[in-house]
């Protein structure tokens, strides 16, 4: 097992290395640089920059260096905890993004947990009560969940929550807690604001996972060993939950790797609509302004999540299914 994890970790590092090279290359590709956008803004404010001043700035930020050189500078910085500099915000990327990433992770993690907690029981119920009215209802809701775009769901839920539940929508905190230090009151306030984005972000994946769970369990329920379990005299509940569900979980676990970054992606749209202080909206801004170090930090962060998600999925799978442990 230790061997297995070690090999996976090495593979992770190599994968991340390749991702960083490709991502950096792509972000460097478009003409111009973040500095151009910055210069443009300075000029539009009426500032008069001489050519020599521009040169000096370009020199300072190494704008005309070959991309490989910039890449190694950047990677070297990463190891020192220096993620680069954001021209747009005139701040170091690290502190700028840190707090927001925390909220992104919180939102994604909660959404993932929510999706699993809802989709597994629903999928199991749907499969064991196939072609009954509750199954049809669950299936219909699934299709709607998969089909409705996130921004629309966010808007509808926002209106609904504000109108009928009197909830304070938008943001993650009420005004009085926004700048306050952490306390139980603030945590509770966060909970009261979090449920809405969690539903919005997880709706698609919950619906999809329910679908996967149902289809797989239907397959497994036809397996001979399920009949064997029944022939032992086990209760139907034990047959389903102990013998069948564990064998139907594989695809759900396999998707774990992809679900984490997908949730972050979903979070971007939901965060813009719901005005959440997460990393998503910052990322979009960064891309639009060619704020390359901010953008690439975000990209790398998503990639790390993808790779970690896959590692987690592999470990979970090995835990659930002894046949995987051989490799």
């Amino acid at each position, binding site marked *: 097992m230790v061997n297995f994890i070690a090999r996976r970790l090495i593979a992770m590092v190599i994968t991340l290395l390749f991702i960083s090279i490709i991502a950096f290359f792509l972000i460097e590709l478009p003409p111009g640089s973040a500095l151009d956008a910055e210069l443009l803004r300075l000029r539009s404010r009426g500032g008069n920059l001489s050519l020599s001043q521009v040169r000096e700035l370009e020199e300072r930020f190494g704008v005309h260096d070959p991309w490989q050189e910039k890449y190694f500078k950047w990677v070297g910085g990463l190891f020192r905890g220096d993620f680069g500099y954001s021209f747009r915000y005139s701040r170091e990327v690290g502190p700028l993004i840190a707090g927001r990433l925390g909220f992104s992770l919180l939102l994604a993690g909660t959404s993932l947990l929510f999706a699993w907690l809802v989709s597994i029981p629903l999928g199991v119920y749907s499969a064991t009560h196939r072609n009954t009215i509750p199954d049809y209802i669950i299936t219909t809701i699934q299709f709607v969940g998969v089909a409705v775009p996130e921004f629309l769901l966010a808007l509808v839920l926002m209106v609904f929550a504000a109108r009928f539940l009197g909830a304070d929508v938008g943001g993650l905190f009420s005004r009085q807690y926004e700048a306050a230090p952490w306390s139980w009151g603030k945590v509770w306030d966060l909970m009261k604001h979090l449920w809405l984005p969690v539903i919005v972000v997880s709706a698609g994946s919950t619906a999809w996972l329910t679908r996967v769970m149902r289809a797989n369990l239907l397959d497994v329920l036809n397996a001979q060993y399920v*009949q064997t379990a*029944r*022939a*032992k*005299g086990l209760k*139907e509940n034990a047959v389903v939950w102990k*013998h069948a569900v564990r*064998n139907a979980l594989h695809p759900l676990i396999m998707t774990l790797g992809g679900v984490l970054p997908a949730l972050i992606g979903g979070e971007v749209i939901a965060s813009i609509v719901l005005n959440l202080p997460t990393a998503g909206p910052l990322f979009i801004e960064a891309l639009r302004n060619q704020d390359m170090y901010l953008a690439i930090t975000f990209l790398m962060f998503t990639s790390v999540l993808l790779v970690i998600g896959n590692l987690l999925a592999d470990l979970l799978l090995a835990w*659930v299914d002894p046949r995987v442990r051989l490799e």
Partner: protein
Amino acid sequence: MADPVANTGSTATTPDGGVDNLIQVENLEVRFYTQVGVVRALNGVDFNIPRGQVLGVVGESGSGKSITGLSIMQLVPRPGRVEGGRILYKDKPDSKTINILDLGRQSDEMRAIRGDDIGMIFQEPMTSLNPVFKVGAQIQEAILLHQTPNKQEAWDRAVDILDKVGMPNARRVANSYPHELSGGMRQRAMIAMALSCSPNLLIADEPTTALDVTTEAQILSLMRDLQSEIGTSIMFITHNMGVVAQMCDEVAVMYLGRIVERATVDDIFYDPKHPYTISLLRSIPRLGQKRGQRLEVIKGGVPDPYSTVTGCPFHPRCPSFMPGLCDTVLPIEAFIEGKTNHTVRCHLYPGCTPDSDQAVTGVSGTIPTTSKAQ
């Protein structure tokens, strides 16, 4: 509940001289309601399994052998339903007879019978063990359910029974996962699981079909040994006549959801009566047959399951077909003259043709349609 000592006499008679039947199936009817139509899987099956004996159930694919076995366990899969008949079960020679079909499928009484009184082995050893649990744990589960609440004791018993079915190094096997065992070993493990609670009846649904001949021979001899040792009755479902000859005391031949002939194993092989049984036996390749001599086959195939054949269900394929009788009147089951344990369902034999006033076509309630088979 199941006490092996009570069975060791393998007595097939009650103290008053009557036959002691462990299981008595009467007029069992099973139908499958599919979207394409209704499949009549069993159309009134009657047979009995004497205590301590091995009953072979033979027939082609689709004749209803497996469904008969599953009916006894009340495990007929959806959309199948047991529509009629009785399955009488007697735990001990002097205990009360209960009709298994009266118990709810999920009732505690039924679950107490499953696995404890009646064990079952399936055809596919490769898929009949759960891949994610250790072999020992799967056997232990059944013992915990029926015999003892003590986990350690149940585990020890699981190891013991694995040892008993001839597993080399039973302790290690108990700790391995199914994918680490070969097909033959898995089938041994299944047998161990089915026998773990010393059942009165073991339903073996083609247990050796998926195995190679060497392994098959080992498994069969293992089952014979265990049967004589603990006195379990066996319902042996197979389509292999050679296996029947080796294993069984009595044989029931099934065709299209009906039993067409019942007899002792000797009578089936040396004095078969029903044309279907005769054809089945002729279609086995034999040693000593001349080169180039063609193997006899039963002409035609099993009719499409959604149709109903009028009269005798075998008439479209029967070499002794009598027009006007076989295709209109359903033969009834009757004893062969001078025998008390050999019955047949064929118009060739006296007693099988119902009196003309009762001569109804097909099964009651069916709409007779012509068979789609040739």
